[in-house]
């Protein structure tokens, strides 16, 4: 079963890599933000998968939870900045 | 300037990589780092501090003074920001 989760993790890794394309090249700031939040979601799941692999998932849930909560704040801050930009 | 910094960077990297040649492999459980001081933290944290999270017990107790310093660093950063940026209202 570990092998299965590991392969899911690897799959997510590949997805993260793909999303990184948008982060690095992705024209404009908005695409990047979208891609980063996508990466955040994948990270969240990958953390849990690592927890499963380590057999200590309860230790990793908190981190995932933090991501669920704070990724949101981060995105809000960026979008607020983008909205308020220009009219300082 | 760019060339100079590139040279410095490459030099530093060379020194560092030279240093890695003698390092134990990553993940090797027999390194001095894992053998000398840290085993005690692992084996005796429960009986000495009753805290299963070893990191917390080391952070809070064995090396608690570092953490005091850390808190002070944060405190200084806060005060530093206030000192640097705070302006009076009239402006």
């Amino acid at each position, binding site marked *: 079963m570990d092998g299965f989760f590991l392969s899911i993790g690897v799959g997510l890794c590949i997805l993260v890599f793909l999303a990184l394309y948008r982060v690095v090249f992705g024209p404009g700031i908005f695409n990047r933000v979208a891609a980063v939040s996508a990466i955040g979601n994948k990270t969240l799941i990958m953390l849990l998968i690592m927890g499963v692999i380590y057999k200590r998932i309860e230790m990793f849930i908190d981190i995932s939870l933090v991501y669920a909560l704070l990724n949101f704040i981060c995105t809000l801050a960026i979008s607020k900045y983008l909205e308020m930009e220009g009219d300082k | 300037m760019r060339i100079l910094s590139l040279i410095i960077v490459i030099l530093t990297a060379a020194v560092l990589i030279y240093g890695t040649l003698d390092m134990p492999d990553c993940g090797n*459980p027999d390194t001095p*780092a894992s053998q000398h001081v840290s085993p005690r933290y692992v*084996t005796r944290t429960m009986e000495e501090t009753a805290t299963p999270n070893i990191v917390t017990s080391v*952070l809070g107790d064995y090396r608690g003074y570092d953490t005091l310093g850390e808190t002070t660093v944060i405190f200084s950063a806060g005060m530093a920001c206030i000192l640097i940026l705070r302006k009076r209202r009239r402006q």
Partner: protein
Amino acid sequence: MFDFIVGKYNYWIHIILMMIGFYAMMSKRNLIKKIIGMNIFQTAIIIFFISIAAKRGATLPILEHAHDGGEHAIEAISYINPLPHVLMLTAIVVMVATLGVALAVVILVYRKYDTLEEAEILKKIK
């Protein structure tokens, strides 16, 4: 050879990462870029420390059977070395604190010179 690379991989990556940060700190002319370089530099060091702590086949440095009265013998070999983690917690805190102060200073600089480019600031100082 493969073992060699696998064993040293983390170290080399941390060196490369650190040098990226270092280069950015030295040669980038934008102040915020320098701060970003600083961030990368510091995280590279953290990677190094965490690599020191890693132990193959060991689990997290949180005791697994803490509350069953010594039924399971605790062996140091089966837990990852916690000490570097502790050090790096402190280092991250320092990193954040430095980031805060650096940004405050940058804002002050911007207030004064109305630019973040080092070259332009130097021109204005003269």
